[in-house]
């Protein structure tokens, strides 16, 4: 099936590996360890066109760079948005960046979500934890052209309620009548009235026509693996389920070899993959 997904995006017209200075416009804390940054090119130019699901290499002067998914509105050519969890030295420095500071950006890289294949279909978006940020551009795009899609079911899983990012926005999505947004946490205290359990446990109850559905999954590998399994069991074809994979990345241009996943370079051939193509790898250890 031809899709814009398979059209290899032209590598960004920049010197490979050289970051371009961007200015931090704002930094907003999402959770204890996660923040959302809004960045604009320091030279006042437009940001390069990007598609939902692509990522940038975000650089901190003197520290290093990390692969971070685009999580803002892909149609906005004035700023880029990244939601980052402080999980190491570099991401900690990114999360700590404050307004006015310069960060480096190169990208966008990779193959994004096949938005064209979702048009006219029911859409299932399943996110685990920080898997929501890479799917947020999908939601923005679909809500902007809501009439082009069938039912939209969003299922979000998180560790605990305090680990939820975009909390106010989630509440506004949950109030919309043109999509269903379910949130499930692994465990909660008494201050949580929502669902607790597996995000996959919401699948039987989700409303979509399996044979006419496209599903985008992003989250911890085991969450995506289990979700894809259960979606397929409900009748969604393995060709219509897409996963965003994560591997160690250094160069983002398929040169450094770090992100190899079987025959694929996650940075170039992914990060979004069709479930049918990677199903065997998902069940093989240490690939």
């Amino acid at each position, binding site marked *: 099936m031809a899709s814009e997904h398979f059209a290899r995006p032209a*590598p960004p017209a920049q*010197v*490979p*590996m*050289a*970051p*371009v*200075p961007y*200015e931090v416009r704002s930094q907003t804390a999402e959770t204890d360890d996660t923040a959302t940054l809004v960045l604009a090119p*320091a030279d006042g130019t437009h940001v390069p066109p990007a598609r939902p699901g692509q990522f940038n290499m975000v650089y901190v*002067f*003197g*520290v*290093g*760079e990390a692969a971070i998914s685009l999580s803002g509105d892909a149609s906005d050519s004035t700023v880029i948005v990244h939601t980052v969890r402080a*999980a*190491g030295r570099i991401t900690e420095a990114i999360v700590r960046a404050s307004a*006015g*500071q*310069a960060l*480096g950006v190169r990208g966008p890289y990779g193959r994004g979500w096949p938005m064209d294949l979702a048009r006219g279909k029911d859409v299932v978006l399943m996110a685990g934890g920080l898997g929501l940020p890479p799917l947020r551009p999908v939601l923005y795009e679909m809500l902007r052209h809501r009439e082009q899609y069938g039912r939209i079911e969003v299922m979000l899983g998180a560790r605990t309620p305090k680990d939820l990012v975009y909390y106010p926005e989630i509440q506004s999505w949950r109030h919309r009548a043109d999509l269903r947004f379910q949130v499930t946490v692994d465990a909660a205290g008494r201050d949580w009235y929502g669902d607790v359990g597996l995000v996959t446990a919401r699948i039987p109850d989700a409303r979509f026509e399996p044979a006419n559905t496209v599903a985008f999954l992003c989250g911890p590998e085991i969450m995506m693996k289990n979700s894809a399994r259960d979606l397929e069991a409900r009748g969604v074809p393995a060709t219509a389920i897409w996963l965003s994979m*994560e*591997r*160690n990345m*250094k*160069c983002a*241009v*398929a*040169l*450094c*070899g*770090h992100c*190899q996943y*079987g*025959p694929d*370079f996650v940075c*170039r051939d992914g990060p979004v993959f069709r479930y049918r193509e990677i199903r065997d790898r998902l069940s*093989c*250890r*240490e*690939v």
Partner: protein
Amino acid sequence: MTAPAVGDHLRMDRRDFSTFLAALQSSGYRVVGPTIRDGAIVYGDIRAETDLPIGWTERQEAGTYRLERRADAALFGYVVGPHSWKKYLFPAHERLWTARREGTSFAVTPEPVDETRYAFVGMRACEIAALDVTDKVFLGGVRDPGYEARRTRALRIAVQCGQAGGTCFCVSMGTGPGVTHGYDLSLTEVLEGSRHEFLIAVGSEAGAAVLASVPVQSAGPDLDRTAERIVSTTAASMGRTMETVGLRDLLLSQPDHPAWDRVAKRCLSCTNCTMACPTCFCHTTEEVPSLEADQTERWRRWDSCFNLEFTKLHTASVRTSGMSRYRQWLTHKLGSWHDQFGMSGCVGCGRCITWCPVGIDITEEVSALRTPAPRAAVGAPR
């Protein structure tokens, strides 16, 4: 005689080799080639022909490399040492850019183009094949500026192998020992009795230009036949063989074959094989800030899929077991390389066998994987 031209087959007397080296130097090339250092034939700068390993050869077996005297004074009477030409085209440590703070922002200056014109003297057929592979890696997609700069300026002076090494299997990989393409000049050293000369095939204008000031004559069919005989003798004495039919599928379809666990028990994850391999291209990046923190540099350094940190993701690595790392290396080299680059990543040079401290032999491991894994044996005590 008329000026040398592409396609010519010429002869050059051994005594004129110094003239040939001088012609390369005076043409502006930085001449690099085989030389003896630390008990091995490695690649380094060649200022005079005495830098070459004249009269030396090496004995290679799994985990073994030893220099030995030859009975003659051959210039290229060895096979391949631990180095490969990738150390020039894709240096083990290379600066990519420098950045300097400017107010609240910073400015990035890419590394200037490396204008060095290398003359690689003594490229073996397997090394020409390795160049095909690294060209595909570094120039087939996003082009690596450093590699491209050096590669496009480099002069490739091949030498057909007059003997096979103990760990060689280029015949199996279809990469040698005859040099068929990808050279500017291809030499065959002919050393029979008192006769010591070179047959030279001219592969490019750049190669022909170098020969303009070197005494060469038309080779004649006799010398061509001698060269063919030398190459076919070498081909018949390969130290190793590898069955390549269906190899990609064999590797990719057997992630649980017990052979992986067996080899993992011997593998030290020392990364020697990946450093010695002429096609292994994996690298990492390093940020090197100045003490004043007003300037910083981005470097890249050879990395290896055998390093635990290679697949580090958040708090843990994806490939933690030695088994999975060896499996990744071999499956990539001989299997998924085909998917990525349309060719095998192995050229049959044997370096990974020779330089493995415990003597793991890639050809033996392929044979082991060809032995069907008994279903019951998978997961059973071994």
